[in-house]
């Protein structure tokens, strides 16, 4: 009887912790849910020796009834300037993507099953660029710590299945979420062998007109190959007035 009561208490405590962790994570996602936006950003990709490859891109994103549509266009360097990528991000089906290559003056649809792979050759993955589906993860509050003077929760999110882990490109991650603001300042990603793989630092949060926060600088450090990538937002505008037909494959070369 005593054992049963202890077991129930442990189970309840575990369930409560999991619930809290999921809620904290949800609050973080809610605090940074900017919705429609337009921005210009610079991506610096560093190799282990410190060589850098730079890409400047403009991004426009709008949520429509059946999907969120995102249009990315390269502004620099010159050899890829004008290259554009259109993504339809569906809730319940695979993304649709089109690319426009100015050198060929052609729009091509591309199919990718590689969400966990690197985004534009950087240390960010395609999965990092989109908001995670909370249903795919188990959450656990594993502790508290102070990060640069901020008291943070450490929330561990673990992929529910091996397939999901492979798809996302990590087995679990630990987010450091500020207890005051619910903003996340650091995420540690663990590889399929549960070894630390990448560390993301998120800084320069700015409050937008809609009350949400947006990070103007993200750095991803790969501790296994010593490569680093940073994404710096040069210009940000909350909301977008671009009409829906701008986000169509036929218009991709005119954006």
């Amino acid at each position, binding site marked *: 009887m005593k054992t049963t009561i202890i077991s129930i208490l442990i189970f309840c405590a575990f369930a409560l912790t999991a619930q809290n962790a999921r809620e904290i994570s949800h609050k973080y996602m809610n605090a940074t849910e900017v919705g429609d936006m337009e921005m210009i950003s610079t991506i610096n990709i560093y*190799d282990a020796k410190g*060589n850098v*490859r730079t890409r400047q891109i403009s991004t426009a994103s709008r949520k429509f009834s059946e999907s969120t549509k995102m249009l990315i266009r*390269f502004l620099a360097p*010159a*050899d*890829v300037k004008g*290259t554009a*990528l259109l993504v339809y991000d569906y809730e319940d089906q695979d993304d649709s*993507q089109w*690319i426009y*290559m*100015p*050198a*060929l003056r*052609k729009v*091509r*649809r*591309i*199919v*990718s*099953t*590689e969400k966990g*792979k*690197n985004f*534009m*050759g950087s240390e960010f993955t395609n999965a990092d660029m989109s908001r995670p589906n909370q249903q795919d993860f188990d959450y656990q509050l594993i502790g508290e710590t102070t990060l640069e003077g901020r008291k943070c929760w450490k929330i561990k999110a673990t992929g529910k299945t*091996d397939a999901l882990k*492979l798809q996302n490109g990590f087995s679990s991650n630990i987010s450091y979420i500020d207890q005051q603001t619910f903003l996340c300042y650091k995420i540690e990603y663990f*590889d*399929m*062998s549960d*070894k630390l*793989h990448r560390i993301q630092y998120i800084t320069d949060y700015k409050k937008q007109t809609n009350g949400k926060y947006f990070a103007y600088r993200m750095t991803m450090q790969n501790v*296994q190959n010593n490569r680093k990538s940073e994404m710096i937002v040069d210009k940000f505008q909350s909301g977008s007035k671009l009409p829906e037909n701008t986000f169509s494959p036929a218009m991709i070369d005119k954006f």
Partner: protein
Amino acid sequence: MLTGIILLAAIIPLTNTKINSNLESYMPDTMLSKINNKKIGEFFGNDETMLLVLENEDVLQPATLKRIQNISESFMMNDAFEQVLSLFQTKNIQSDDGMMVVTPVVENIPEQPAEREALRESIRKNDLAYGLVVSEDFRYAMIMLTTDQQMPDVELMEQIHQIIGKYPGNEKVYMTGQPYLRTEANDKIALDLMVLLPIGLCVMLIFLWISFREFKAMILPFSVVVFSIILAMGLIPALGWELSLIGVLIPIMMIAIANNYGVYFVARYQEINYYHPGRNIAKIVQEVIAYLKKPMILCGLTTIAGVLGLVVHLLIPARQMGVVTSIAIAFALLLSLTYIPALFSIIGKSTKKQYKQVNEGFFHHLLSHVGKLATNSPKRMSIFFIVSFLLLSGGVFKIHVAPDSNKILPEDHGFNRAIRIADEHFGGSKTIDIMFEGDATDPALLKRIDEYSHRLEQNPLVGRTASLSMMIKKISMALHEPGEPGYNEIPEDNFAVSQYLELYGMSADIADFERFISFDYMHTLMTVQYQAASLPDVEGLLQDISEMLKDEPQPYVVGGASLIDKEISQSVEIGQYYSLLFAFLAILILLSIIFKSVTAGVMGSLPLVFAVFCTFGLMGWVGIELNIVTALLSSISIGLGVDFTIQVFWRIKTELMYTDNWQKAIDKAVRGIGRGITINAFSVMIGFSVLFLSAFPFIQSFAFLIIISLFLCLISALALIPALCMILKPKFLNDQRPTSKVKCLTSKV
């Protein structure tokens, strides 16, 4: 006391001995292949490749595919492996209804025969997979793994075995790759030392007993062997070196060599004791030392000179072996002149029975016969040697140099089986990398690389080539319709190439390209996969590549794993010549100095020339390849074989002090010193015969050849040298009168 201190000092570092079976590390860092590979590694990493081959009647059977999927995905989950490439990771880039679709070759395992045949057809059309991760007859499937060399080999191999073991199946699994080779070689080096050393010591102990039938005559030379082995093996870690594959030979060499001087001492001691039963031990020991000191030191010096020939070898372990064995031989010589006589004096005298038994046996009759044959028919004997020399040494022109180090392991080892499968079904197990410097997105460069690929693929040895050009053309096929301009072509401007790369980065993993293009897009790599059965094959292909690239405007570097193999093989061949030349010259000079005659130098070198060339000729006739171990043969056999000649010269010279009759002097010399030489030679041969039990086939070959070589040195010393002396009657042997010490020693013997 001094012996004890030296041994103690040698035992302490022994515990820090490290085994190193990495053949690449055997080469100096100044070798071109290493420099080039380092340059390529700066931009494309120094990853090593492991190949796993699964064999089944049809690898597209669901169970086999499931196993490949489970195994390859487990490797992907393991961070020891940088890249994993199997049917489940290799991409299928295709155009589908106006879309560029990048998918794994096998997305779903086909359960129905029709689905299976559809998959087979799709694979046949995909040159990123067909013949690369699956054989053309679908009997073999390949899983390629790359590792960044961070994890120790043993741990890495454990992980591979664990993953394979976790997913059992009916398929046969073979693997090959440097980490596997090193692990297997390391295990075998340790096993060899554990097995060969005790057996070798036991064999030596038995041989000494059979030869001398006296406890102290057996145990004292034996203890010198043990002490010398401890010193030689202790010197390796003490000098900051590691025990190499070649290092297995060191203790066995010491077993064979270090007892020589003790054997001469004991043989002479028993001889004098037999003829002078009344003489006390101190007197006998004194007489033995007086008689043997000079020839023993000379034998020791000439052996050291021969073995030191290895110091000029191009392979680092060969040089290290030359140094440690030389020091240990010098130590054995010192012990034989101090420690053995001292203990003989302390232990006391034995009866003359031992020598009598031997004197009336096999050796006596054999040597009498040989001596008579050489002195009665010296010309016939010389002709016999000349004819034998011409017949045997003719095989020298048929000697092959091993093109790689694969034969370290037995032919039927899974490692070599996987190599054969890769050669026969996957375009080859060897690779050459060509790195081009300059803007890698330059269409002109990419078109030239494409042209090089076509030219190289005409070469029957080349299975396939892979390059950025191939990938760009593959993407172009997905972006254009067949017949449309641009289909299966390199684009005309570099902006388009850059955009192709961005496109691929967005639709798949840009890491797929990192094998071919550096981070800064300023270097591109072309890989040539090929097979080669001999060094000339490799050299021929490299010559073709060099010819092909002679007008290439961009700087380029040729490297790759097989370049290391090629340079090791060339080093084996050239190092062999250096060592041979050094040893011959050293022996020629030493003999000329010892006997104050150039004729002595030349005559003394003849048995060595005979033995070495006949042995190499035999290698050619029998088909034994010159490799990192067999290339050590000449220096070692010269170092050992010259002893016999010196002993014979010395004894003839001594005998000629008392008679002007050359026939009588030579005959007596052969019968007298012949026993010591023969026992010595057989003890060395028996010592080396232990190497037949080695786990390494080429060490077994070495055992065969060194025994043959020593036997040839022995018969040359006992038959050719006496015959030549009989014909030439050289002055250097007949220019002295006896000293009082030698006179009393030889007067009755």
